[in-house]
């Protein structure tokens, strides 16, 4: 049986630009007491080696659910994948056996979680938790695993790694704990890392250090990185492209700088306007009116229409597809798509 894993192992080193992951028309829903919540409604995105995709959205936009589905750690039930494909190096992971998927997890695709304190097991030493990666996936002995754990802690620049390898998560600071999470994700040099709000729980200064470390390590190994965040500020420096999600759909994708310079969706526009800026000191900060939609009762038409000041009757009746975005001359803008009936007005207006 030639499994995906063996094939993946054959391509030993990552070549930047190799397509790694492609999510195709993914639909995920949750069964709840009050009905079915459609958390992900036809999401498409892809990541290549060496590339960073930032997935941006408020809580409830489906960004984390998508990531958990890719990772195969979605709680099922209540979650259910209704349709779609998740291709990892060309193979649909949703069609793999549980055992095949398990072997990909941690080894080929790793994940960094938001809250390192609760995401690390409180009663096991960090050395054990790091070493476990080598013991389970590579059959390393206790001793080898410990040595590798120390090496990893060194690599993510935890001071005095050798002395601290036997310490427990609660004995580390928040930033150090997040470094341990990163080290754990990096342990087996995976092809793809999914970082779910990796810096949200940290102080601002520590945030920058952790993001820099992540970017640096990514550059070194040419991994693909999916960075899930609600914070536009975090994204700007590290991401190559951005996918903005709203109510379980991607509403806009674009190369990072183009999106900042000139958004093609009113939601993105609103998000950008709500970032505090020094040159607007003294003015009232913009906030998108209303609240994110209840996933049990998503508004008809464009899900954003009740909060959108540009909304028309068309927006209230028809769900906009993710269009290719054109420049003023009618030429396609590479990598830019928008799911807005009024993308032209938004982009060029």
């Amino acid at each position: 049986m030639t499994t995906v894993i063996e094939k993946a192992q054959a391509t030993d080193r990552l070549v930047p630009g190799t397509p790694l992951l492609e999510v195709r028309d993914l639909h995920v829903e949750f069964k709840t007491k009050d009905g079915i919540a459609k958390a992900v409604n036809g999401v498409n995105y892809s990541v290549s080696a060496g590339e960073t995709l930032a997935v941006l959205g408020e809580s409830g936009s489906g960004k984390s659910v998508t990531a958990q589905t890719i990772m195969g750690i979605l709680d099922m039930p209540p979650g259910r994948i209704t349709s779609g494909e998740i291709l990892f190096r060309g193979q649909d992971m949703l069609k793999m056996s549980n055992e095949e998927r398990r072997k990909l997890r941690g080894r080929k695709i790793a994940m960094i979680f938001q809250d390192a304190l609760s995401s690390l097991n409180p009663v096991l030493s960090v050395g054990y938790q790091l070493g476990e990666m080598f013991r389970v996936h590579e059959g390393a002995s206790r001793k080898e695993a410990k040595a590798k754990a120390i090496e990893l802690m060194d690599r993510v620049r935890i001071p005095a790694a050798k002395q601290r390898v036997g310490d427990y998560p609660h004995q580390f600071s928040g930033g150090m704990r997040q470094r341990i999470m990163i080290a754990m994700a990096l342990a087996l040099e995976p092809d793809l890392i999914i970082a779910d709000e990796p810096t949200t729980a940290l102080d601002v200064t520590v945030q920058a250090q952790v993001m820099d470390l992540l970017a640096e390590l990514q550059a070194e190994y040419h991994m693909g990185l999916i960075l899930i965040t609600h914070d536009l500020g975090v994204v700007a420096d590290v991401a190559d492209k951005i996918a903005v999600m709203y109510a379980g759909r991607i509403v806009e994708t674009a190369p990072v700088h183009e999106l900042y310079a000139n958004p093609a969706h009113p939601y993105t526009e609103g998000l950008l306007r709500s970032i505090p800026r020094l040159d607007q000191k003294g003015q009232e900060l913009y906030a998108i009116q209303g609240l994110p939609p209840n996933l049990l009762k998503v508004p008809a038409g464009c899900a954003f229409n009740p909060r959108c000041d540009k909304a028309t009757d068309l927006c209230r009746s028809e769900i906009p597809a993710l269009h290719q975005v054109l420049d003023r001359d009618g030429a396609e803008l590479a990598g830019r798509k928008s799911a807005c009936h009024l993308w032209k007005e938004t982009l060029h207006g």
Partner: protein
Amino acid sequence: MGRFVARRLLQMIPVFLGTTFLIFMMVRILPGDPVAAMWGDKAPDPAQLAAFTHKLGLDLPWYEQYFDYMGKLFTGNFGETMAGRQVIDVISEALPVTIRLALMAFAIEIVFGVGIGLLAGLRRGKFADKSTLVFTLILISIPVPVLGYLFQTFFADQLKWVTPTVQDSMNLGQLLLPAVVLGSLSLAYVARLSRTSIVENIRADYIRTATAKGLPRRKIIGTHLLRNSMIPVVTFLGTDLGALMGGAIVTEGIFNVKGVGNALFRAIGQKEGATVVGFVVVLVIVYLVASLIVDLLYAVLDPRIRYA
């Protein structure tokens, strides 16, 4: 770890002194004359009563009595039974039996309790879970004496698998039935507690992390889930030792196991007040030591306690 042990030992000293003082005061303050009680329902002869009171030092002021009492405790003098034997001798003879019985009961409640709890917790809301809830509810509701007779009638009288009472108190096979009775109430509690704990922990973030690391399910449950879920169970086991001792009195009485509980059971039946108190004091000391051991075990399981 060494520091933790030292600190716990130091903390135990005031509790130990306090507890023994409390028992001393209970015996002294409460109505009823322990010496008069030695005559049972008959009226004591006043001269004999006074002589006994003096002999036992009960006419001294309370603090002198207390020091006297503590001195006796430290020299292992817990008084005499009516038959004139030293309480400590009776206990040291019977203790090995009780320890066997208690360890067996403990093993049964841990193995089956945790096993059932794990099964129910992993299948939350399913049949296995619901039947566990019903089963444990029933087990908890049946008081130990009732359960003892129920088992005795069923397994000994009806099925004739065992003799109704234990013939050889050191025989592990014969101790099995009393051990099941003794352990069953706590088994039910352990099962429920494990289930709750498993249900709570299975949704924890570190379990999600373990899954994301690609660990096999066996390892996720065995190492990550179980270890965390056992912390409240161990805490419970510590306090449960007391209930186990109370249960031992009943169980050993019913099955005629020649242990400490049985001796106490008889002492109560023969209204030997002073002996009862002597036994209880020893058992309380055993309880305190055992809870200390459980406490230390707790620290082994949870590093957050150790380094706090």
